[in-house]
């Protein structure tokens, strides 16, 4: 049986991990490669790097970080942030990313999604959907696509947009509620459910996790295929295994394989 994935997400800037609180308050919280190795050893099902300043910074630091991570971690790695061209996708995949997440560039030019999917295959093209609830007085909930960390409205309906990018070849949707991101008040379940049921590809729920029950809700009520969280894992509030135990107890199938020993330990044993 296919298991529900738990995906820690590392926001990175200048090659260092930062914690994004509504994408504004940034605190340096360590070396991304070391964090990736720790998550690999802890049994994370995938890892996600989001380069939050990629549009302004030198890509070399990010590519080197991806390269070093891919050499040491034996789990899938998704990298996003500042991906604008087919060449950006190619260099990230060549550096060792398994999937590349496209955000603003897909909003600006939908054909880019098709081009990337045709070139590299849908399996490695994730489209990040950043959505915010809008009140248009109609009563029924509606969400719009926002860019630039939730600051810029696009007027695009989130459900329509998700369906459109999947039609163009996106193999997965990384769905973030900009209302909930950084709040620890739980996923926007109505949004997650609306998108999950509207597309035939997997949807990763993101934005707002503060407790382990939130992860359960994302899958049970939001119908997400995978759940992404950052700070609850980064600051040791909960371990990956605690999250999996909690989900398993709630009847959600998760993977709990024996861990791969940390490579440093393996080298030390060899030397002994």
């Amino acid at each position, binding site marked *: 049986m296919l298991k529900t*994935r738990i995906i820690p997400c590392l926001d990175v800037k200048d090659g260092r991990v930062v914690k994004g609180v509504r994408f504004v308050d940034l605190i340096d919280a360590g070396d991304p490669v070391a964090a990736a190795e720790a998550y690999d050893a802890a049994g994370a*099902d995938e890892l996600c790097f989001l380069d939050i300043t990629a549009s302004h910074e030198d890509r070399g630091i990010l590519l080197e970080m991806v390269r070093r991570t891919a*050499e040491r971690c034996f789990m*899938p790695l998704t990298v996003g942030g500042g991906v604008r061209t087919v060449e950006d996708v190619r260099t990230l995949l060549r550096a060792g990313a398994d999937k590349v997440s496209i955000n603003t560039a897909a909003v600006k030019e939908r054909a880019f999604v098709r081009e990337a999917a045709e070139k590299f295959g849908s399996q490695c093209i994730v489209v990040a959907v950043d959505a915010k609830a809008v009140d248009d007085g109609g009563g029924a909930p509606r969400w719009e696509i926002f860019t630039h960390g939730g600051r810029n409205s696009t007027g695009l309906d989130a459900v329509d947009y998700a369906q459109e990018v999947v039609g163009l070849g996106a193999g997965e949707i990384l769905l973030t509620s900009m209302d909930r991101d950084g709040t620890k008040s739980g996923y926007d379940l109505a949004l997650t459910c609306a998108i999950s049921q509207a597309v035939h590809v*997997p949807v990763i729920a993101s934005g707002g996790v503060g407790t382990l029950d939130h992860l359960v809700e994302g899958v049970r009520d939001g119908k997400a295929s995978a759940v992404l969280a950052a700070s609850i894992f980064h600051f040791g509030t909960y371990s990956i295994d605690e999250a999996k135990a909690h989900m398993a107890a709630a009847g959600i199938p998760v993977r709990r*394989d024996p861990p791969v020993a940390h490579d440093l330990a393996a080298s030390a044993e060899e030397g002994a």
Partner: protein
Amino acid sequence: MHVAILDYGSGNLRSAQKAFERAARERGLAVEIAVTDRPEEVAAADRVVLPGVGAFADCKRGLDAVPGLSEALTEAVIGNSRPFLGICVGMQLMASVGREYEEAEGLDWISGEVVRLEPADPTLKIPHMGWNTLRVRASHPLLGDIETGEDGWHAYFVHSYHLKAAERDRVLAETDYGAAVTAVVARDNMAGTQFHPEKSQRLGLSLLGNFLEWRP
């Protein structure tokens, strides 16, 4: 021992190389893992690995586009009976024919076709993406110390097509995704996995170690 991972422009092969190196270290094996597009290196290798990501026909074209590479692969695997491992689309290429987007001929080492996944349950997402268990149909050294079955270890899959073998005996293991999905195929000195062992943590490193020690 020299292991050649074929580089024909299909994805990044560094993680596959590093996973093999790690698996070799775990087993205490002295192995040189080369990512190569040089036909002479492939033909002379002790073991050959064919990775692949993307669409079937694209991968086949990529393989055929490197002068002499396809012939070197055949020489090593068919001529010299070297142990062979195909991974993901590299495994699918072992089939007679692929039907993703367009029809394309495969290597025809495992009689059968590569067809779209059609789970009985329409709410199941495509691609089949994530961690799934293996149901073994026939024991094989490649699966040696791996715990299989519903409560066993997991392999990482990401695919929308799978290899439907004409002879069921070629299918070593399946996984369940709305229907039986081919996970591992083998015959003689050849084997292939639909999942990515280099991304499958414990199960993956075990399988790669088993491949390095496999004596068909």
